[in-house]
């Protein structure tokens, strides 16, 4: 185990600052290797050799009892530090024998009964026991520290490498081999719940895949049937986003948890990056469209302004014959019609995108009605507009510009096709999660076959083509505007009851309304 741990570390790029620790660890490993099974014989032999050497030297130098006893004591301590208690016990037995034979008077005789022997042996044994215990504990701590350090270094390495993942690509296929490589685990499986996708590697890939799914659905940590197999749900905040399953001998729960956290962060990082890129692309498209449409508006409106200035100027000057006057009036009318068509086409283009960006805000329906009427004031020619009191308390959460445009189209449509002189009524209500506006006018009904089709672009009912000038765009703009807000439009038309257009928007939730309430609801 220690050897594997060491090779695992060697695979890591280590910084110079950790080199000293590395060297220290080599020593620890050396002791551990020396202490292994084959070390017992070697320990006993080394102890015996040391005792023999000390005996020889001490005997030759005629050292007294206490000096030679101290030397033997030193040997026993060293053997117990290096090898352990049992090796030291053997050594102390030999040392006591030598001490008795060579140094305890009468010299060169065995005196078994002498209590000095037992005192010396007991002393040596006590020292061997104490020292070996301390030594074992120190070594155990060093081992635990080494393991801890290795784990932190691997996690650090994983964190570092996650930063270099390609966020434009899928994260799963990148991070799974990374975990396998860094932690040296046998098999890895990652279940990404958002993409409903599994990436797995190793011989137990299929089994781990199932375990990862289970961990996600049970929202917990699972222990596999076989040893060293875990699966852990990945969470961001409190929300589960997937699960990670691992099998590997060196893995413990302590490692598993931070690996799961790092993986969850990697997934989230990639996801937020993708969302950002998507939002940025949408914003740029929107900007481009706005720029093109503004350019087009300017390009069309400039010649139209010149034409209308000239035509209305001719009419104002009043120096023409009746025939000339009629021709100038025709130019003026048609220029105005062209202007209206241009405006509506541009409005259409603005909201006719798959992902129209709405500038949503809390806006009162009364404000929308005011906006619509203000724009349409000139075409109303004194038509009576009645706004019901039911509207005054209504608020919607939407794009003021687009909604006012839609309302304007309904009012314009009503004023164009209704009985001249009859009032146009705007009313509203809240019903089943929708805010519904109704624009009612009196006049001939719309044929049932036309009621759907009038919302189509450029479609104009047979009768109306001859009755009133229109572009055929207005109602389709209103429909688009409603759809952009997740709403709908429809019409109810009866012979004697007139025609009512309905415009329904999903009610903004209280939270949406409140969220913008503080920021000033209008631009």
């Amino acid at each position, binding site marked *: 185990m220690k050897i594997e741990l060491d090779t695992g570390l060697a695979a890591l790029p280590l910084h110079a600052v950790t080199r000293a620790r590395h060297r220290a660890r080599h020593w620890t490993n050396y002791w551990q290797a020396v202490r292994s099974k084959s070390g017992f014989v070697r320990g006993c032999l080394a102890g015996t050799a040391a005792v023999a050497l000390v005996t020889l030297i001490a005997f030759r130098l005629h050292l007294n009892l206490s000096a030679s006893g101290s030397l033997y004591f030193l040997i026993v301590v060293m053997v117990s530090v290096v090898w352990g208690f049992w090796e030291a016990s053997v050594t102390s037995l030999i040392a006591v024998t030598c001490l008795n034979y060579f140094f305890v008077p009468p010299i060169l005789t065995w005196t078994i009964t002498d209590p000095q022997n037992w005192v010396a042996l007991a002393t040596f044994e006590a020292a061997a026991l104490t020292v070996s215990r301390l030594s074992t504990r120190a070594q155990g701590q060093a081992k635990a520290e080494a393991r801890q350090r290795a784990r932190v270094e691997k996690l650090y390495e994983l964190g570092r490498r996650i930063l270099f993942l390609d966020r434009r690509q899928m994260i799963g296929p990148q991070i799974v081999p990374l975990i396998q490589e860094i932690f040296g685990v046998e098999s890895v499986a990652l279940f990404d719940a958002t993409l409903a996708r599994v990436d797995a590697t190793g011989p137990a890939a299929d089994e781990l895949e199932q375990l990862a799914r289970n961990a996600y659905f049970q929202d917990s940590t699972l222990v596999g049937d076989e040893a060293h197999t875990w699966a852990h749900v990945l969470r961001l905040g409190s929300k589960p986003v997937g699960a990670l399953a691992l099998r590997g001998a060196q893995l413990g729960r302590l490692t598993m948890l931070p690996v799961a956290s790092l993986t969850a962060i990697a997934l989230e990082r990639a996801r937020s990056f993708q969302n950002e890129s998507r939002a940025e692309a949408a914003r740029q498209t929107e900007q481009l469209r706005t720029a093109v449409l503004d350019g087009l508006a300017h390009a069309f*409106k*400039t010649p139209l302004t*010149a*034409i209308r200035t000239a035509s209305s100027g001719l009419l*104002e*000057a009043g120096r023409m014959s009746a025939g000339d006057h009629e021709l100038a009036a025709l130019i003026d009318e048609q220029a105005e019609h062209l202007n209206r068509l241009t405006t509506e086409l*541009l409005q259409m283009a603005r909201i006719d995108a798959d992902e129209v960006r709405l500038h949503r805000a809390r806006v009162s329906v009364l404000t929308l009605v005011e906006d619509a*009427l203000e724009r349409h004031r000139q075409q109303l020619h004194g038509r009576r507009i009645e706004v019901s009191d039911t509207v005054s308390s209504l608020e919607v959460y939407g794009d003021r510009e687009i909604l006012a445009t839609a309302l304007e189209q309904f009012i314009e449509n009503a004023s164009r096709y209704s009985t001249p002189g009859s009032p146009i009524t705007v009313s509203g209500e809240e019903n089943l999660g929708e805010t519904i506006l109704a624009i009612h006018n009196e006049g001939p009904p719309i044929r049932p076959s036309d009621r759907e089709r009038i919302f189509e672009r450029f479609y104009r009912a047979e009768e109306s083509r001859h009755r009133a000038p229109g572009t055929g765009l207005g109602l389709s703009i209103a429909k688009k505007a409603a759809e952009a807000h997740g709403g709908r439009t429809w019409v109810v038309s009866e012979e004697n009851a007139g025609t009512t257009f309905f415009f329904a928007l999903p009610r903004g939730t209280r939270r949406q309304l409140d969220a913008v309430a503080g920021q000033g609801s*209008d*631009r």
Partner: protein
Amino acid sequence: MPSQGKVLIVDDDSSIRRALLNTLHGMGFHVEEAATGEAALQRVHEDPYDAVLLDVNMPGMGGIRTCREIRKSMPRLGILMLTVRDSENDKVMALDAGADDYITKPFNIRELAARIRAAVRRSSGSQVDPDAVIRVGDIELDPVRRLVHKAGEPVHFTPKEFDLLRYLMAHAGLPITHARLLRAVWGPEYGSELEYLRTFIRQLRKKLEETPAAPVYLLTDSHVGYRFAETGPAGSS
């Protein structure tokens, strides 16, 4: 026909200048033209004008900056900006830069002429007596006695409603931005309380208008502010 006033047209598009030059001349204005904001600045300092017609969207200095520059040296000159619809920001910026009014392209020449005449009147007229009675259509406001009559009948207003109406009527025919209105009537620390203002305007309309939903006196300029009609419902506003 006597000259209705001397007007400078500033637009980078020559066809619009040509059309305006001829039609306004035909309507009795003395008209001159400039193609850029820089040229316009030079012209207004050389020659006295009654009104300037200024396009917002011009290359170079641009209409808004030109307006600000002219306004610096000529506080009373009538400035009318030409804008395109759907550019509410331009309108507010133009008014903040000191323009008296704006008109949206393409316009009816009669409406333009009416606005120019109003601008000429303001720039050439003597200082208006702030205590004089103001009459628009059948509405009459007496600032000193704080009384309002509609078609001869007295109408009651709260003090704030009266101040708001008085300010709007004193600037009849001109668009007043929300911020300016709030500051003038409620005080300099106001400026963004739009809902507040809207509530008051609704009250005024209820008391003044025949059909509050389709007002003829107290008009809304979408996204910009409010404008009190210059003439009663009979005339075109």
